[in-house]
C-alpha cells in the first residue's frame, strides 16, 4: 500500500497543484468581478446596474458545468481559442464573481446609512467615504461569506476534469483506473480536498478575528 502511494505521489501532487492553481485563479477573477459587480449593483447608473443584475442572475442560475462546457466548446466556435484550463478558470471565475457581487452588495448594504451620512457631512468625498468608512466595516461582514464561496470554488474546480484538465480528481481517476485501489485513493483525494478547504476555513477565521479587533 505504501508503495502504491509513493509511486502515485508525483501524479497526485501535480493534480493537487492544478486544483489549487485553478481555484486560486478563479477566486482572484471572481473577487475582482465581484467588487466591480457589487459596486455596480449598489451605485451604478441605471444601464450599468441592470447589466450587473443580468450578469449576476444569469451566472447564478446556470450550473457551473454548463458554463464550463459553453466556454470550452463555444469560444472556439466563435473563433476564440481557449485551452481547457483557461476555459475552466473563466467559467468558475464568472460564477464566483456573481456570488461575490451579491456578497459585496449585502456587506455594504448592511452598514448603517448614518455612517455614509456622517462621513459625507464631515466633508469626505464619495470615494474617500467608501475607502475609509464603508469598506473597512463591510470587509468584516464580507469575509465569512468570501471563505464559504472559496470553499465552493475549490470543490467546483473538480468539474474542470470533465473538459480533460488533469486536476486532483482526474489524477485520482487515472490512478484508480490503473491500480484498482479504489478505497485507498478516493480516501487520499477526499483527505486532500478536505485539507485544502479546512486550511481555507482556518485562515479565514484567523483573519476574521484580526479584523474584529482592528
Amino acid at each position, binding site marked *: 500500500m505504501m508503495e502504491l502511494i509513493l509511486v502515485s505521489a508525483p501524479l497526485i501532487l501535480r493534480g493537487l497543484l492544478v486544483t489549487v492553481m485553478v481555484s486560486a485563479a478563479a477566486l482572484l477573477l471572481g473577487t475582482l468581478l465581484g467588487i466591480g459587480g457589487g459596486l455596480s449593483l449598489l451605485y451604478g447608473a441605471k444601464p450599468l446596474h441592470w447589466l450587473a443584475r443580468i450578469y449576476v*442572475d*444569469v451566472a447564478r*442560475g*446556470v*450550473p*457551473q*458545468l*454548463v*458554463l464550463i*462546457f*459553453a466556454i470550452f*466548446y*463555444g469560444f472556439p*466556435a*466563435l*473563433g476564440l481559442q481557449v485551452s481547457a484550463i483557461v476555459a475552466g478558470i473563466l467559467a468558475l471565475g464568472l460564477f464566483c464573481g456573481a456570488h461575490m457581487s451579491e456578497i459585496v452588495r449585502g456587506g455594504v448594504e448592511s452598514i448603517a446609512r448614518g455612517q455614509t451620512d456622517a462621513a459625507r457631512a464631515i466633508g469626505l468625498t464619495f470615494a474617500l467615504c467608501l475607502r475609509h468608512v464603508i469598506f473597512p466595516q463591510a470587509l468584516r461582514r464580507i469575509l465569512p461569506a468570501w471563505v464559504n464561496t472559496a*470553499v465552493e470554488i475549490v*470543490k*467546483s*474546480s*473538480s*468539474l474542470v*476534469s*470533465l473538459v480533460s484538465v488533469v486536476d486532483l*480528481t482526474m489524477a*485520482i*481517476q487515472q490512478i*484508480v483506473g490503473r491500480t*484498482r485501489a*479504489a*478505497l485507498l485513493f*478516493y480516501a487520499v*483525494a*477526499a483527505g486532500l*480536498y*478536505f485539507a485544502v*478547504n*479546512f486550511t481555507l476555513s482556518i485562515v479565514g477565521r484567523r483573519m476574521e478575528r484580526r479584523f474584529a479587533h482592528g
Partner: protein
Amino acid sequence: MYQFNWRPVFDNFDLLLKGLCLGLGIALLALAIGSVIGLAAAFGRTHGARPLRLLAAAYVELVRNIPLLLIIYFVYFGLPLLGVGLFDNLWSFVLSLALYAGAYLTEVFRAGIEAVGKGQIEAARAIGMTRRQVVRHVTLPLMFRVALPALGNTFISLFKDTSVASAIAVPELTYGAIRINVNTWRVIEVYFVAGLLYLGACYAIAALLRRVERRLAIIP
C-alpha cells in the same frame, strides 16, 4: 464567421425537455432522502450522546468539504471495485446527491431546531407532554417553518448540481445538450437553450417556493 442555425436544437428539443424533467425528479428524490439523513443527523448533533454527536459532525464536515464529483466517482466506480455493485449510473447519482444533500440539510435542520425557543419547550413540558410529544408537536413543526426558505434554496442548488450527472451518462439536461452538440455541432445554440432552460426552471421553482413560504409563514 459562425452561422446560427437553431433548427437542429429544436428538432431534438425532447432530449432537453426530458432531461429537465429527469433532473427535477432526481433533485426531488435526493432532497427527500437527504432530508431523512439530515433530520437524523441534526437530531444526532443536537440531542444525541457524545459519540453520535461526533459522528454526525464528522459526516457533515467531511461531505461539505469534498467535491460532489468525487462522491459520485466513489459510488459509481469505487463501490463496484470493492464488491458492492448494486447501483446503475442513475441510482449511483441519486445516492451520491442524497448523501451530499444530507450534509447541507443537517445544518439547515440544526439551525431550525436551535431556533425553537427554550421557553416553548419548557412550556410544552410543563403542560405534561412527554419528550417524544414535544419533539413531534412543538420542535418539528416550528423547525420546519424556520427551515423552509433554506430548504427551498437547497432544492435549487441540488437541481443545478444534477448537471454533474452527465459525467456518468445519466440522461439529464446537460447530457442532452452534450449529445445534441456531438450530433449536430450547434455549440452556441444548444448551450444557450440549455442555459435558458436551467435559468427558467430555477426562477419558476424560486417563485413557487416564495408562495409556499408566504402561506406557511408563522407571522403572515
